[in-house]
């Protein structure tokens, strides 16, 4: 695969691949736990996110951290670059809503392509209306003010049961979210494309009425 730029690579993934075929390829390469928990869902079925993970590590708080509880959160969002995806790891307290419509707007203006949150989000109808691909475990109206604090950014985190490192490729659609480690990124993408091609041939032959056993024998994909 020859992509002329990072932008072209991300667009190619969005156009040619889907999360199951990437997950299968990671399986074959021995990375069998790269899909996030199934309860992290897109706010809309059409949302697809592809990009580089920028990580935010949250902690639960019980009053606003002085002097500015938003300090690292704002810094992180303002530092997003085109193709970046903010990935949030909270402590599963269900009281932190790290993301809403204003942050979506700010992130989009920086060229960010979506966000993934292992907790709750808010302003959901507005986020859907603006079409900013947001994946979360739930919805609550709570502000993070006095409840959560970004303790660090651009560090290794765990989100949805998967370890995420800054710069990892993250890919989410309605089937779920996969994290592609840097070390096997290009290999995974090339192999996933080959498998998608085999799946297309399998589908064509199934539609011609051939039995699954016969077609599976021929292409070896399902």
């Amino acid at each position, binding site marked *: 695969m020859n992509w002329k730029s990072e932008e072209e690579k991300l667009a190619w993934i969005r156009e040619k691949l889907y999360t199951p075929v990437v*997950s299968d390829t990671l399986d074959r390469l021995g990375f069998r736990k790269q899909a996030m928990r199934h309860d992290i869902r897109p706010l809309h079925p059409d949302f697809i996110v592809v990009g580089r993970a920028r990580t935010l590590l949250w902690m639960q708080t019980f009053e606003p951290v002085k002097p500015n509880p938003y300090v690292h959160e704002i810094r992180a969002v303002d530092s997003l670059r085109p193709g970046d995806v903010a990935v949030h790891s909270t402590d599963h307290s269900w009281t932190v809503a790290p993301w809403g419509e204003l942050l979506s707007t700010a992130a989009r203006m920086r060229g960010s392509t979506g966000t993934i949150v292992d907790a709750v989000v808010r302003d959901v109808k507005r986020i859907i209306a603006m079409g900013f691909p947001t994946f979360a475990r739930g919805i609550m109206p709570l502000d993070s003010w006095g409840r959560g604090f970004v303790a660090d950014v651009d560090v290794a985190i765990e989100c949805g049961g998967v370890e995420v490192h800054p710069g990892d490729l993250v890919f989410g659609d309605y089937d779920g979210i996969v994290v592609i480690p840097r070390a096997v990124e290009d290999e995974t993408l090339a192999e996933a494309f080959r498998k998608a091609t085999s799946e297309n041939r399998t589908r064509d032959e199934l539609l011609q009425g051939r039995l699954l*056993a016969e077609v599976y024998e021929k292409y070896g994909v*399902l």
Partner: protein
Amino acid sequence: MRYLKYDEQLSQFFSSVIMDTLDSLGRRVQCMDPRIRPLVPSMRAWGEAVTIRFDAVVEMPQLPYGLEIQAVDGLREGQVLVSQCNSPELSAAWGGLLSTAARARGARGMVTDGGARDYAEIVELGFPTFCRGHTPYDSLGRMDVTEINIAIRCGGIDVRPGDLIFADVDGTVVVPQELSDEVISKAWEKVNGESRVRDALRSGAGVAETFAKYRIL
């Protein structure tokens, strides 16, 4: 397929009216766990249950997808595949290519207490799929079909091969085979009655007088 002769009636049913009928026969727990949902609200499926059971595995099976392929290739017109997944972790018991294969055999739908993937492909194909969650994970090396055409428990309800399955956005109801003729006939009476009630309410009749007259709500 044993229910094809009832296709016209079944096409006018809802899971709720079938459940009401089962209630009236004293079978009050015949609807699967409400976490089993259609991929899109408009999906509906009914037909004869074909059952398979997945069990958790930790390594690749000798024959990948062996019994699963056998079950799908064996599907016939009007059947619904129902799968029990004995696996603590969610992986896909169903996907786009399997939907394509099942559709080609004339199957009407798929119900699983496990996961499904290839959402966009299945929705475009319009193959009624009911599952407990979405996941990109393949079943390969995570769970494997160990038995087909056996009694299973899916979504908390016992399902035997040949039972009648009726699934829509309100839920997935299992009608034991031996009750199916009676349930279909009683549900048909109720559906016709409900149409009369709807007509009465639309023409302005009060709920109390309408219920007193038809005893249906």
